[in-house]
Structures are given as structure tokens and as C-alpha cells.
């Protein structure tokens, strides 16, 4: 039994324009200690999916179907008290905008210590000492002094470190990071990524990393889930996803990732904007944007299958699966793309010296 199992999760938002199915039949699992990336464009429902895990949907969002099992217990069925005992204690969250995630009128230290006090039978002094140790652990210099600082006195990167410290305060089994580096300066991003990488490697904490940035995923994750229009379209161990992407959407994302050594004149993009989730496309949801789409794609909905055997998804989360009709043998022309490995020293050695590889 995996630590966290999400099965057929459906999340809806009620807007003036209609019901938005931000998450539509999502299933995945996270095992203890592993780091799983959830990747997709903005609006693909990644944040909704992660917030649903702790029943923290904002606005009109509502979980309308599926199960979220943590250590075998369905989080949807928990009482308010049981849910509070899990939040921040067993499953913790790191938010995209750390500045907004900290309450402006309380000191950073107080907000972290508060978490410890609510979950553990700690005195004020113990909570304070542990908070200072946590601030130190996430790389905040002079932690004892910064304890009494207000959030606005922290820089953006330091705020994110504080939020991570808050999430780590009760040694959670799962850490959900929702776009933890978006909006930060590149240099600051690198520091936060380093911190998360260290965490992923050294601690027992499993991490669910939500991001639109494939570079971040490459650096941190063991496995990747690619989400498109509320559904998972591909799931693979991180290496396989990059070197052998199976779903045309993943291919498009990879092709659209800017690189420093690009000699292309123009960055390719996936044509057309992300689909309307009030009235999603029929058949394969990616077909209006897919360069390989054929007539059958508009009518038949592909399911996640093993691309080699074409068999439906089995129990092993390590299996590479993708949801494209190509792998059930329905496409006539096939998928015409190629992954080139540009490691040949002759053409690119100069650039290689100038910048580090993500992997």
C-alpha cells in the first residue's frame, strides 16, 4: 500500500460560465520517501489536484468524486478533527507565493511555532527552540534573531524558506509543493531547489512537486505525472519521460522548453491555448492542439496504456504509461518526432563548459 493514493479524483469549480472540471478522474500514488512531479500548463488543474489532497480547495471548488487515501484512510471521509490532525502534521503544503502564505501581522517565528504547538504537546519554549532550529535547517542565517521578524522583513527567497520550515515543522510524511519556485528570481530559485533536493535525498519525506517547469522536475523528481486538461496523459520515471516521451503533449512541452544552447531561430510552441474545461474537447482532449491528430482522436477517448504492449495500466507505479490512441494502434500515420541526444562533444563543448547540465 502506497502512502498516498489518489483514485478517480474529480474536482469541480462553479463559475459564472458553467461548471469547470479542473480535475477529471485523476489517479496516482506516492510511496514513502519518493519525489513525484505533477507537470502541466497553468490551468491544467494541477493546483486544484494538490489542494484537494488536504481538502483545501479555494472559492467554489469542490471534490465531487474519487478517493484520496492516506495510509489507507480516505481523507474525504475524515472528520474535521481528524483532518486537522493530518494537515501540517502528516501532510504539509508549500505554497507558490510565500509572501502571501505568511500572515502579515504575526512574526515568522510565531507562525512556525504555532504549527508545532497545535500538533505536539510542546511548551512555548520548546516550540520556539525547535522553530529556531528549523529556520537554521532551511538556511536562514541568524535564526534566533529572525524569529521575531515579520514576513515583510524577509526577502522573497527567505519567505519561501520560512514557509518550507513551517511545512517541515512536524516532520510530515508527505510534502506537497505547489509551484514552490515560481515568481522567484533565478538565483533564488536555485537555492530553494537545492534545499528541496537535499530534503528529497536525505529525509524520509515524500514530495509531491507541482510545477509547470520541466527543468525543476528534472532536478528533483523520481517520477513524473503529466497532467493535461484535468487528466493524466503520461506517467513515467523521470529519465524515461525526458529521453523517451510517449505522449504528443509531453513532446510538445519538451520541445517548448527553452535552452541556453538553442540554435533554433524560434521557440516552438504548442499551438492554440489550453482547452476550456467548462466544455472540454471530445475524444482525446489534446486533439485540437495535436499536430498528429487524426479523425479518430476527436471521437475516441484514449486511456492510459503501456506504450509497448498497449495493455492498460497495471499496478506498478514505475511503469511508463501514456494516453494516446497511437499505442492502441488506432493512428494511421503515427507520431513523427525524434529525441536527439546532443551530447556529442564536437559541436557543443563550448557551451557545455559555460553552463551546468540539469542532470
Amino acid at each position, binding site marked *: 500500500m502506497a502512502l498516498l493514493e489518489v483514485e478517480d479524483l474529480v474536482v469541480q469549480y462553479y463559475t459564472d460560465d458553467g461548471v469547470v472540471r479542473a480535475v477529471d478522474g485523476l489517479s496516482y500514488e506516492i510511496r514513502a520517501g519518493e519525489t513525484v512531479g505533477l507537470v502541466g500548463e497553468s490551468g491544467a488543474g494541477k493546483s486544484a489536484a494538490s*489542494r484537494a489532497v*488536504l481538502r*483545501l480547495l*479555494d*472559492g467554489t471548488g469542490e471534490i465531487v468524486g474519487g478517493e484520496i487515501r492516506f495510509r489507507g484512510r480516505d481523507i474525504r471521509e475524515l472528520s*474535521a478533527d481528524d483532518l*486537522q*490532525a*493530518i*494537515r*501540517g*502534521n502528516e501532510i*504539509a*503544503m508549500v*505554497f507558490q*507565493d510565500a509572501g*502571501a*502564505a*505568511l*500572515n*502579515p*501581522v*504575526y512574526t515568522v517565528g510565531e507562525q512556525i511555532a*504555532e*504549527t508545532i504547538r*497545535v*500538533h505536539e504537546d510542546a511548551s512555548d519554549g520548546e516550540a520556539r527552540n525547535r522553530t529556531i532550529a528549523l529556520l537554521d535547517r532551511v538556511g536562514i542565517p541568524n535564526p534566533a534573531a529572525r524569529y521575531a521578524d*515579520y514576513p*515583510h522583513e524577509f526577502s522573497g527567497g527567505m519567505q519561501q524558506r520560512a*514557509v518550507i520550515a*513551517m511545512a517541515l515543522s512536524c516532520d510530515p510524511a508527505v510534502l506537497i509543493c505547489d509551484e514552490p519556485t515560481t515568481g522567484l528570481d533565478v538565483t533564488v530559485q536555485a537555492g530553494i531547489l537545492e534545499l528541496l533536493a537535499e530534503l528529497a535525498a536525505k529525509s524520509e519525506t515524500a514530495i509531491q512537486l507541482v510545477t509547470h517547469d520541466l527543468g525543476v522536475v528534472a532536478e528533483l523528481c523520481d517520477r513524473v505525472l503529466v497532467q493535461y486538461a484535468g487528466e493524466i496523459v503520461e506517467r513515467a520515471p523521470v529519465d524515461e519521460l525526458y529521453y523517451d516521451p510517449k505522449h504528443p503533449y509531453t513532446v510538445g512541452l519538451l520541445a517548448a522548453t527553452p535552452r541556453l544552447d538553442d540554435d533554433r531561430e524560434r521557440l516552438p510552441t504548442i499551438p492554440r491555448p489550453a482547452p476550456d474545461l467548462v466544455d472540454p474537447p471530445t475524444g482525446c482532449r489534446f486533439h485540437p492542439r495535436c499536430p498528429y491528430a487524426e479523425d479518430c482522436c476527436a471521437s475516441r477517448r484514449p486511456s492510459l496504456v503501456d506504450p509497448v504492449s498497449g495493455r492498460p495500466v497495471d499496478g506498478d507505479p514505475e511503469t511508463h504509461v501514456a494516453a494516446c490512441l497511437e499505442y492502441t494502434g488506432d493512428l494511421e500515420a503515427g507520431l513523427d518526432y525524434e529525441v536527439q541526444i546532443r551530447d556529442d562533444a564536437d559541436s557543443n563543448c563550448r557551451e557545455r563548459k559555460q553552463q551546468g547540465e540539469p542532470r
Partner: protein
Amino acid sequence: MSLGRYVGRRLAVTVPVLFGVTALTFSFVHLLPGDAVDAIVGFRAVSPATEAATRAEYHLDQPVWDQYLLWLRDAITLEFGESPVTGRDVSATIGRRLPATLALGGAAWLLALAIGIPAGIVAAVRAGEPADEVGRLAALAGIATPNFWLGLILLFVFSVRLGWFRVLPPDAPLVSLATAKFLVLPTITLGTASAALVMRLLRSSMRRELDATYVTAARAKGLPERTVILKHVLRNAVLPVVTVAGLQLAFLVDGAVVVEGIFSWPGMGRLLVQSVLQRDYPVIQAIVLVIGIAIVLANLLVDIVYAILDPRIRY
């Protein structure tokens, strides 16, 4: 910047406004058509000797600027002279009336907070639900009810028909059970609209705060919903409500002017109305000045309290 320097700067902005308030109050008598002496004595026929004395007392024989400065000097030392209508010392009269108004206003303010804050919290948390709709209509009704009408109705139902809260012993001390009982109806009359205002303001600022990420973050930490609302949301949501304490004060003063008359409560508001009806200008001037300065100082206090409550503000 330190809090002390912030207060200093805020004080510096207040001083010109205080001068404006005194200048406006001073010019009040001079804006009246005709000779200022006539206004001061209430447009009655007076003997030339009285006129000369009045002219000298109010420095009307001097240039306007000097008049203002002399008047200001008198005002600072609380020397408003005697009322030409009643012959009583203006400062003493106001001094006698002020505590009654403070008692009524304070009670109404407490009532407004006691109703408005919990109602605002409930309405914000239950936004869109029946409780919120009921609260919204109640608040609208509270704002739309003329306080003099409400006062009359309460008076009719409770005093005339039911015979409660009827008599105030004429010499009851301000702090006594009899007075407190008598104050019940005026307090409700005066506090209702304020409560509605507090509720609406708090509801709207809580709604805004409830959408903030830090609220989700507080829930994600596993805090009980009560703590999230009362510790995290409310603390931020009261900040905008604090800024309107000056408005609240003005609102209560306006209400007191009307309500004191209905219930024959011997406060400043009733004094003001009596003075206007009797054209007792020195008294009107003094009351208006006291009210103006009180509101300016209240706004100053509000800004300082705000700066203490919100760590982000240190200009």
C-alpha cells in the same frame, strides 16, 4: 522608521487641520449676515453699553486676524465667556453636559461593537448562506431606519405602553443603576445604525481576507477553523474597521444630537439643538469646536493604533 517618528510626522499633519478647524469655527459667527455683535447677542435689541461690552469681550474692535488669535487664545484656555441667552458660563455648561454625552456615546459604541463584530464574522464566514442574507437585510434595515423614528417607537412601546425605563430621577448621578436603566433605550437607538455599519465593514474586509493565501496556509498547518478565523483572519480584518473609528465617532455624534432630544438626556447634542434654536452663537461655536477637535484627535489616535496593529506600517 520608529513608531515615535511616525507619530511625530502624523502629528505634524494634524496641526494644520486643527488650525483649519479652529479658523472655520471662528469664522462661523463672521459668516452670518450683518454685524457680528448682533449675531453674538442673538439678534436682540440691546443697549449701547451692552453692545460695547460685547464688542470688547469678543475683541470685535480689532482686525480680523487679531480677533482670531485672541479667540484662539481664549479657546485654548477654555474661556468661551458667557452665553448671551442664558447668561451662564459656556465652558461650565459644556463641562456639565459632556460626561452625559460621553456616557451615552460610549455605551452605544460598545453595543455597536458587541453586535457588529460577531454579526460581521458570522456573515463573512457564512457568506451566501441564509445567515448572511438575514444579516445583510438586518444591516440594511439598521442603516435605513431613522434613529429619531426608532427612538420614538422604542419610547412608545417600552415607556408609554409597557411603562419600563420611564423616569429618570432628576438628580440621579451619572454612574448609578437608575441612570443605567434609563440609558437602555437611548443606547439601543443610537447604537443600532453603528452596529450595522460595523457589521457591513467587518463582513466585507473579512470576505477579502478569507480569500488570502495565508488563510489556506493556516488551514494547511492543521489549525482548528476557530483559530484560523479568530486569530488569523480577524486580526487582519479589523484593521480597515479601525480606520473608520473616526467616522464612527462622527456618526455617533450626529445620532446623539437627535437621540438626546428624544429621550431628554442632558447631553451636548441636546444643548447644541437648543442653542441653534435660540441662536446662542457662543455656545454653538464652543460645541462645534469641541466636536471638531475631538474628531481630529480621534483620527490621529486611530492612525497611531493602526500603526501599532499593523507591523507593515512604519513610514
